[in-house]
């Protein structure tokens, strides 16, 4: 056989093999056309996960769309860092492809993370973690500043109390710091009250009296609810500026208990967290830029755009 003929036959064979290979490609175990199901574990910092129900719906929506399975885990005791860490370890060992976490102690968790060789992406919600792949949260400094500006807008001359329930949560601390700085910049007397969630209901009235305060700013949904409850229970007259969206908060706004809130879509938080976790697990570039938020005053809560944010359309 001539050399040319042999070369032609070899090329023909290679091309034929390429056709067969491309036909078999989808059947090969490692190159399956169907994307592998991603296992996502969402680990909260609370024992009660009802506050995260909208977030969970967003997570589930994204998981359905992008072919992922979701495990939604809460702690047996709120803000128990060790338990949360154990849960993280257990989920990683159990083969989770991505971890979404609301960290109890972002700094500690960051230190722990820096000493680990973890291949799965870690996504933080609320507070940034240094070594995490991504943080899904509104810009904490902007949020703190916006809340402070809302309070300044209706300030009545007394001390503005900033309820600090952040403990070691750096994201919340950043919000409070920004609010404090903004208020101070406007020469408004500020008192930062470090208090636990449980103390709000009982101790807040006396503290407000003590500091001669008629304006209170809270920086977390739960503390906002507690402050509102305290206000209604004790029939107190102070302006309350809070954070987050829940039916209770909406009800309080409707009744005028809460004067304004910084609201963002928890559904969007969950959706974006799951979407980016899946993208990172599949070695794709994350798409998250920033989570928009809005200051809603109680008088305007039924404006169309505010209504959409305050009352998620959830079937």
């Amino acid at each position, binding site marked *: 056989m001539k050399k040319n003929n042999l070369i*032609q*036959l070899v*090329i*023909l064979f290679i*091309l*034929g093999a*390429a*056709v067969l*290979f*491309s*036909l078999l*490609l*989808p059947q090969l175990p490692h*190159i399956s*056309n169907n994307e592998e199901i991603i296992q996502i574990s969402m680990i909260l910092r609370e024992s009660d996960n009802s506050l995260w129900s909208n977030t969970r*719906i*967003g997570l589930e*929506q994204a998981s359905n769309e992008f072919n992922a399975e979701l495990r939604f885990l809460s702690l047996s005791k709120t803000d128990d860092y060790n338990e949360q860490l154990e849960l993280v370890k257990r989920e990683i060992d159990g083969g989770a492809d991505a971890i979404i976490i609301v960290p109890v102690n972002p700094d500690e968790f960051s230190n722990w993370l820096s000493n680990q060789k973890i291949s799965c992406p870690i996504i933080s919600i609320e507070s940034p973690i240094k070594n995490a792949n991504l943080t899904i949260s509104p810009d904490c400094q902007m949020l703190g500043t916006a809340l402070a500006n809302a309070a300044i807008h209706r300030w009545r001359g007394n001390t503005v109390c900033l309820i600090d329930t952040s403990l070691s949560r750096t994201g919340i601390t950043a919000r409070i710091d920004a609010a404090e700085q903004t208020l101070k910049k406007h020469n408004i007397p500020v008192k930062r009250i470090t208090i636990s969630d449980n103390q709000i209901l009982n101790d807040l009235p006396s503290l407000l009296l003590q500091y001669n305060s008629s304006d209170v700013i809270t920086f977390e949904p739960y503390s906002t609810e507690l402050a509102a409850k305290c206000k209604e229970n004790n029939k107190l007259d102070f302006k309350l500026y809070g954070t987050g969206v829940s*039916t*209770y908060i*909406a*009800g309080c706004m*409707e009744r005028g208990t809460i004067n304004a809130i910084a609201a*963002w*879509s928890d*559904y*969007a938080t969950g*959706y*974006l967290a799951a979407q980016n976790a899946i993208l990172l697990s599949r070695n794709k570039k994350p798409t998250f830029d920033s989570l*928009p938020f809005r200051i809603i005053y109680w008088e305007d809560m*039924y404006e*169309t755009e505010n*209504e*959409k*944010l305050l*009352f*998620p*359309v*959830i*079937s």
Partner: protein
Amino acid sequence: MHKLFKRFALNIAGLYKKMSIQMVIARSFTTVAIIGMVFMGGSMVLHFLNTSSELIIENTERVLRQSNLNLDSYLRSMMQISDTMYYRVIKHSDLAKDSISNSMDLLYEENRDSLVSIALFNGTGELITSTPLSTLKQSAKPQESSWFLAALSKMENFHFSTPHIQRLFDHSDNQYHWVVSLSRYVQLTYGGVTKSGVLLVDMNFAGIEQVCQNVELANGGYIYLIDANGEIIYHPKQQLIYAGLHEENNIKASTYADGTYKETFLGEKRLVSVKTVGYTGWKLVGVVPNKTFSSGSPQIWFFGLSLILFSIFLLAFVNFRISAYISDPIQRLEHSINNLRIGTDNLQIEETGCYEVQKLTHSIRSMVSTMHHLMDDIIEQERQKRRSELEILQSQINPHFLYNTLDSIIWMTEAGRYDESIQMVTSLARFFRISLSRGKRIIPLKDELEHAKHYMTIQQIRFKNKFTTEITAQPDTENIYTLKLIIQPILENAIYHGMASCEDDGLIRVNAWRDNDDLIIDISDNGIGMRPEVVESLLDENKPEIKTSGSGMGVRNVHRRIQLNFGEQYGLSIFSEPDEGTSVRIRLPALNEELAKQMEENE
């Protein structure tokens, strides 16, 4: 353009002229096949895309029709609730004395999955009765609500609102429902007096959502619902849109009439089908991404590319094989004909290839065979002709020579010069014997020299010894053979032209010697010589031959005979100077006995 096309055609034609038949066939077939394949493939892809697009449109419109029916049915059921409440309860009740709460509760309970509340307001917005909750919120101002105002402004119609939060009634547990409000103007009877009122049926938004969700369209398409102003009523990503994380072209869609449109939104091409929902002016919009092959997976691209390459290469390969099957026998035939042209012996022409080529080969074989026979015949004829010519040449002995010689013998006998006449007769006899040589053309050199010697003996007697002759042969020429009768014509020339004016001092020398493989015979005289133009004309076939009264065989005759027998490189060379003499050199191959015999046999 025409010139450009002509130039292109000429270039192609020029290229084709330089190509082999295999290349012409293979390239032409492959090109035509590829063009055909691309054309057919393109047509099929276009047809497929069109059909696919039509199917998608048909499917989308069918799904929209079905969804529209479902939605219509749902809305109709809501209107029936309103109608029932109005025509069967309110119209038959005097609200001053009758309570309609029980009927309202009953109606609500029957449809509680679809309803959030039913409420009846008077013309100023005061609540008359409602179910399931009966207390308005302090902040509620129904008379300022859009549904209330719409009902009073257009009394004859039903009014459907866009989805909103129902915030009329005081929920103890902070419940908020997304509802679509169906309101209508009603006439209320109070103690026989008719007053205006508004009947409100708050439909649970989830009911609409259930109608629209889980509707699947091709290519991952979806449907959404908008009101006449483009406000979204239902969208599968409604919450993302509300959060500002997703966008929809709903405002543009609200301007579309019923039908299907192509649009590009956020860089994505898509088909949008619109169907208006009766009563409400809402529009159901079906969106199908207009995906093409370009949006397929890399595996599809890889498969398509490798299939195309494989097809083209297979096509080219098969075409080359077929063209080779056709052209190879033709090329072999051409090669054979070339070999035939250069005279290769025992040429074999194989009859291979397809039928026509086999027939052609067969014909050429027959032709070659016929040609061989013809050539053999021609060679034989040429040989015969040459032989005849040689024989004619050899037989051209001038009868005058014989007559003059015999006349001289008679004259000498009458004069009593018997010795001389005997010598002359003896030489003549010897001369003729060697001339005949039993029919041989090739004779030993010594015979040829002897023949020359006898000739010169006769001529010396005739010319009364006006010249002398020296005939010598070098020792290495003893066994050499030569063409016969080649020296005598030269000697005759020397006698008649060189010695004519001599006075007993003429000298003619004949010397034979060997020059490697050649035999050289030099014949020189000291006669009057010749002018150069005469020398040049002697061997020139185009010039008239100089006739002598000698034996009749001229110098040119000898030259032609030698060249006919041995080739162009042999023959005569003449050197002459006027008044100095002439020298003629004969060059022949030095034939041994064996070669001489072989030549004789070939003849």
